[in-house]
């Protein structure tokens, strides 16, 4: 039997690849043997298996499918920005095989029925595993607690009012304790809005120069500090979303050393771009938390390198072209990120020497899966065959028309990045194949 991209066989070998797992890229070429959606075997060399079709990997890197702990798929209520189906296509194109959705939809994901609905929508799209988080409070209003128990049974992997912080400290404390006993974290959008309120970019030189209201670092640092102290006392698991300040990195580093059960993620834009990008008032650089200063960008990258920050998460936040036509101070916060995450990682972390390729892949696969204890992110014999083929050297220019998300609000439009996801497989089935620049 021959290998066929059009009809992926139930059993096949991928050969001529450098297998990357557990933070290391194999020095010698190896293979992956897939059978009925599972990893039948993997290792160095290339076994001969009679009758098993062979996909020649052409020297690409074969890695576990990526896991994104932070995406906004906007369904229900924001389907003009993104749906579970369109978001899944974007995820697959970015090499992701598992995503964790945020519950700030309309209505919010604040009950077990909504959790089941999202999982079902994910299964219908069939391109990526969808792991929903639930809201901390009904309607994300910051008052009272959702039925965490029923939602965890339905498949919720964590709780967050992301997009907004949980302002009420006693609610946060209760949520940490209660979720902790169910074995799932509370994910904090750490922002003291009494400090940042009304701001639309980082408070610093550029906000002063441009005449835009600033969001001081202290708004994030104070909120991270509060939530860590609450977690220390409550004993639950706190996960800090989208860390963007050097202060927050330092607070988390210290808390980890002291044994607090805290994990953290950082977005590609926070380890690659700084506030000077806002100089032309383009809302493509408006996000919350905002792009900070170069020493914050470096601190976030170092946090990823030393493990203070556990993983990369995109905070994929689609918005329509119309919304991004608003003036900077009026436009919504957020940028898409699924389809550029790997390339931004290669360009800004690997090529700068902060991480090696194995380390970057770990930040995108094994490490995020471990944070939420997800059955994903690894490549192990007998495990599910979620994997990607990567070309870490290919250069490409980010163009709106090439993005598969329903929204094109990328902070990297027009930028040439290095590193390309060539193909993505979920349970052994092809979910993405790169045709960029290929004449067929």
């Amino acid at each position, binding site marked *: 039997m021959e290998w066929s991209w059009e009809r992926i066989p139930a059993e096949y070998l991928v050969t001529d690849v450098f297998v990357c797992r557990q933070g290391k890229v194999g020095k010698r070429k190896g293979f992956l043997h897939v059978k009925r959606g599972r990893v039948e075997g993997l290792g160095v060399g290339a076994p001969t298996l009679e009758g098993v079709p062979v996909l020649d990997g052409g020297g690409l890197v074969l890695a576990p499918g990526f896991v994104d702990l932070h995406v906004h798929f906007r369904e229900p209520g924001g389907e003009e920005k993104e749906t579970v189906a369109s978001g899944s296509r974007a995820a697959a194109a970015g090499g992701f095989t598992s995503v964790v959705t945020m519950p700030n939809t309309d209505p919010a994901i604040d009950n077990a029925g909504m959790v089941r609905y999202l999982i079902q929508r994910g299964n219908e799209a069939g391109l990526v595993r969808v792991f929903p988080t639930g809201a901390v409070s009904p309607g994300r209003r910051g008052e009272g607690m959702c039925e965490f128990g029923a939602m965890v049974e339905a498949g919720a992997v964590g709780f967050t009012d992301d997009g907004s912080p949980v302002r009420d400290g006693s609610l946060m404390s209760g949520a940490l304790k209660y979720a902790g006993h169910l074995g799932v974290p509370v994910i904090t959008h750490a922002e003291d809005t009494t400090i940042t309120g009304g701001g639309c970019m980082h408070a610093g030189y550029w906000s002063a120069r441009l*005449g835009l209201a600033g969001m001081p670092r202290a708004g994030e640092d104070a909120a991270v500090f509060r939530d860590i102290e609450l977690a220390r006392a409550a004993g639950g698991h706190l996960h800090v979303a989208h860390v963007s300040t050097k202060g927050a990195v330092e607070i988390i580093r210290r808390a980890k050393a002291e044994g607090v059960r805290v994990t953290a993620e950082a977005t590609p834009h926070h380890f690659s771009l700084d506030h000077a990008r806002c100089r032309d008032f383009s809302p493509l650089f408006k996000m919350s938390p905002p792009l900070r200063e170069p020493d914050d960008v470096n601190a976030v990258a170092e946090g990823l390198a030393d493990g203070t920050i556990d993983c990369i998460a995109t905070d994929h936040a689609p918005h329509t072209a119309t919304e991004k036509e608003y*003036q*900077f*101070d009026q436009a919504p916060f957020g940028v898409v990120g699924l389809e550029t995450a790997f390339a931004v990682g290669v360009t800004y972390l690997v090529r700068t020497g902060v991480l090696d390729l194995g380390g970057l892949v770990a930040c995108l696969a094994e490490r995020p899966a471990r944070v939420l204890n997800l059955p994903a992110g690894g490549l192990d014999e007998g495990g599910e065959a979620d994997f990607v083929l990567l070309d870490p050297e290919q250069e490409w220019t980010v163009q709106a028309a090439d993005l598969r998300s329903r929204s094109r609000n990328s902070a990297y439009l027009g930028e040439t990045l290095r590193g390309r996801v060539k193909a993505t497989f979920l349970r052994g089935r092809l979910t993405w194949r790169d045709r960029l620049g290929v004449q067929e």
Partner: protein
Amino acid sequence: MILQRKDVLGLEDLSAEEILGTLDIAGRFRAVFDRPVRSVPIMRGRTVVNFFHEPSTRTRISFELAEKRLSADIVNFSTVDSSFKKGETLRDTAENLAAMKIDMLVIRHSSSGAARYLAEVLKCSVINAGDGAHEHPTQGLLDIMTMRQRLGDLRGRKVTIIGDIAHSRVARSNIWGLTKLGAEVTLCGPPTMVPGALAKLGEHVKVEHDLKRAVADADVLNVLRIQLERGAGKAFPGNREYHRMYGITGDVVRGLKPEAFIMHPGPMNRDVEIASEVADGPRQVILDQVANGVAVRMALIYLLSGGDPGALAGGAQ
């Protein structure tokens, strides 16, 4: 060509030569004001739209007068934020205006960056009449014109701007324009209103929170309007405290260099940022600023519409 550009969005973008060239033309227009017939026919048949997306009286009237004195056709179009809900974007408005074939758009908007955005999407010339807390270039030019009338060359001159610099587009345009012409700028006000980061805007920009020190060797005080509705209680305790700490009183003026003078972009809060005694006193040049405002706006409109400075020499004298 004095202005090699389609738009004037801020003094940050203009060179010293462009600023001085524009002020030279403005001076010639200013001379026309004292004639019995104050208008010149050089913009006849051209359409200028004044699009004010934020309440304004003075700036709008000044632009209108400038346009009328150039004999342009004028359309005034005002909205307040509440009528501009989501769904109607600035782009929609801009494209509608463009479809009606206009020659120039004057825009005042509450969002920083709005003028630049319109300049990118429109083919016609755009003049920024104030965008958020970003820039107000015509105010900057008229302030500089007023200073130059008294002081001549501004190189080495010391200008102190007092007020809520953080929220002031007037301050930013002054800073850019003045530093390009070689003046030294001191920004003064409480730390809540004068972020230290502003000192990084230029080698000759400094921040001084103490009023006495800030004005000691100043040639000019540019006193900004305190926005009573903005930040009271957070940025400063109240008007009485502001007046005590930063108000330009007779005592402050008496301590200045003898030839130093006082400017204010208006409208004034009497006895808050400026004492009536000073506002009505001999050291202020506030009405010169107002008159210069019309001349500066005439000059910009004229130059952006391709006016030839040589031709003006005969016509305006």
